């Protein structure tokens, strides 16, 4: 199989280079048929995300000019001035498939275990389907890739655990509270990380949102976008009585919440747990408040600890992912071998049968009429016995270990030794020219 991949990613190119090679859905649909036609590809798929643009193609002829493919993609985007062929990496056959599997598993992602990539790959295959550039190999490759993605997500923890500070805060909240829909959050200050944390909490269905900001208009704009109510900045300590989660990210030279105030509030709220996420720099809440019972106070360092630990855990899952990829590669090669072996055996049989029938026909008059039936029988038996050995070895190769290289080498050797061409006609012709 002549499968090739070429691609540009965050491993090989900076963002300003990658963004020049990014292809929209419409661009992909326009490029794929041209690629197929001009670069002689039998099948091709393009995957383009903010971190990578990759082409997977099956050669129509015997060889693919990878340099030409790179030039084609650069020209298609008109990016000659900023992108060079050196920004691309290429792989072929098993290497290309393994690479796609690794991408689908999230191992190659910028944030290891990225969950979005599988959907983006699926979208790439769908666009190829719409463009008419899919074929049997790509269809099977799509199934295997999606299967890898699914297995990796169910059998390993590579996608688990928050890997951003804002999401780590939400993860922590769900370790304290059972149902966020019944809880309320107060956002103090409308900074970027605070807003992102609030967005995640809203995404997880937080029950009630309150926002306080020195500039009321900014708070109102945020509430208009995400729902909730605005409270006066001066009322924040009072508001602590009724909320469950506090996200604070204001720029203030001194603490805006003191332990005595929290202590008083905790009595008023019947000691209900209070989760405070302090992402202000310098910190907004006096750390001594964290010592009060049922008060869970975390600053950016504590949240970063969660992120680092989760990233370590994800990295620790890579061996398991590699094992899954290896298994799926074997399965893919087994399918590929079957694809090669079946027709080869058939063509081998046809080739020998052609020689036999030709020779029988040529010499049939040398035999008495009553012996001709026997001649037919004996020559057929000879052919079957010759066929038996190679056929058994090839079939065993695909059924047992599925080790592709070995089986493919046997197929190749058989084809060469007996002159069986790709379209199965060589053997016949060769037979015809004997003696």
């Amino acid at each position, binding site marked *: 199989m002549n499968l090739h991949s070429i691609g540009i990613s965050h491993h090989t190119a900076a963002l300003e280079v990658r963004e020049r090679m990014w292809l929209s859905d419409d661009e992909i649909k326009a490029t794929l048929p041209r690629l197929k036609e001009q670069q002689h590809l039998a099948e091709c798929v393009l995957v383009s995300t903010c971190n990578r643009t990759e082409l997977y193609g099956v050669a129509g002829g015997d060889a693919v000019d990878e340099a030409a493919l790179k030039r084609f993609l650069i020209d298609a985007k008109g990016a000659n001035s900023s992108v060079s062929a050196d920004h691309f990496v290429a792989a072929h056959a098993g290497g290309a498939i393994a690479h796609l599997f690794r991408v689908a598993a999230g191992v190659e992602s910028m944030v290891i275990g990225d969950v979005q990539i599988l959907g983006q790959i699926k979208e790439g295959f769908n666009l190829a389907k719409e463009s008419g550039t899919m074929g049997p190999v790509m269809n099977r490759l799509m199934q295997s890739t999606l299967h890898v993605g699914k297995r990796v997500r169910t*059998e390993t923890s590579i996608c688990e655990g928050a890997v951003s500070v804002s999401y780590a805060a939400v993860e*922590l909240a*769900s*370790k*304290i*509270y*059972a*149902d966020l829909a019944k809880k309320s959050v107060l956002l103090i200050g409308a900074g970027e990380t605070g807003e992102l944390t609030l967005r995640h909490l809203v995404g997880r269905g937080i029950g009630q949102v309150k926002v306080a900001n020195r500039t009321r208009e900014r708070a109102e704009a945020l509430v208009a976008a995400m729902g909730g109510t605005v409270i006066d900045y001066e009322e924040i300590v009072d508001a602590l009585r009724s909320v469950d989660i506090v996200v604070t990210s204001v720029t203030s030279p001194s603490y805006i919440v003191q332990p005595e105030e929290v202590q008083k509030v905790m009595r008023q709220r*019947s*000691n*209900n*747990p209070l989760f405070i996420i302090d992402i202000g720099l310098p910190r907004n809440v006096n750390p001594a408040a*964290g010592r009060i*019972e*049922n008060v*869970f106070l*975390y600053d950016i360092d*504590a949240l970063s*600890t*969660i992120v680092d*630990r989760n990233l370590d855990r994800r990295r620790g899952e890579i061996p398991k992912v590699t094992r899954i990829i290896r298994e799926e590669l074997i399965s893919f090669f087994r399918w590929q071998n079957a694809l090669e072996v079946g027709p080869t055996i058939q063509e081998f049989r046809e080739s020998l049968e052609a020689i036999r029938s030709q020779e029988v026909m040529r010499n049939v008059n040398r035999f008495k009429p009553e012996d001709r039936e026997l001649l037919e029988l004996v020559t057929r038996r000879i052919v079957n016995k010759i066929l038996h050995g190679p056929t058994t070895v090839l079939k065993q190769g695909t059924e047992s270990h599925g080790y592709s290289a070995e089986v493919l080498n046997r197929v190749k050797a058989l084809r060469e030794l007996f002159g069986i061409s790709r379209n199965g006609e060589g053997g016949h012709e060769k037979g015809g020219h004997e003696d």
Partner: protein
Amino acid sequence: MNLQPVVLFLLILVPVMYAGLTTVYGLSFFGDYPRLARIKTPALLVTVTLHCVYLIVRTFAFDHPPITSVFEIMTVLAASIAIGYTYIELRTRASATGFFILFLAFAFQTASSVFIRPRFDIPEYLHSIVLGFHVSAALLGYTAISLSAAYGFLYLMLYHEIKSSRFGLIYNRLPNLEMLETMSHKAEVFGFVALGVAIVIGVIWLPRVFHDFSYWDPKLVGTLVIWCLYALALGAKKRLGWQGRKTMIITLVAFCFVFLSMTVINLSLSGFHSFH
């Protein structure tokens, strides 16, 4: 039909099954064994079923339910804990707490299997239906209290881990604090009510059956102390608005008394309640 060889076989098999089950739950909590995780629930169901079979066969083999001695009661208690946990696991689909709870069942069952002795001289009062209610209520109460303590213990571990920003294994595997607190609280309320029923039945029925009945019977006093402790914990929760760590500590202290009552009082201090 002589069922005693079957009883003996199950007497050995059931604690072995609990040991295996606790190991499976422990390994899948502390380690990373996806295959073990898949067999957890089936193994739990098999063990609980075998335990129930053991209790039924034992009842027929000795012609009385296994409630006539502390070690007989322990095996029923182990079964109740396991059944209670099975219900929770099937209901919530959360199996992370299994190791800690099934370890209790394993401990009670092992103690029972090692020390249990067959009894044939069963006094008439042990066949009474009222006694059945009394013992069932007490067992339900103790089971619920054991579960409450187990969840309380897990709550404290997770609380400590979150508070100290350690975010280790406990943080990863256990359900959230609120859920643990709710489970512990619900089990505690159930246990408190069931134990109350057992005490009321006992106080009304026991003086009529036992001529040597005394209100100073160690087991009765022990149970009353436990009941009062739980009343205190629940009252503090209701009246003083105590939540979380403080109430969990009281729950665990109360459970220590339960354990004391089950072991020291039952084995060392004899009274009319001992039935030996």
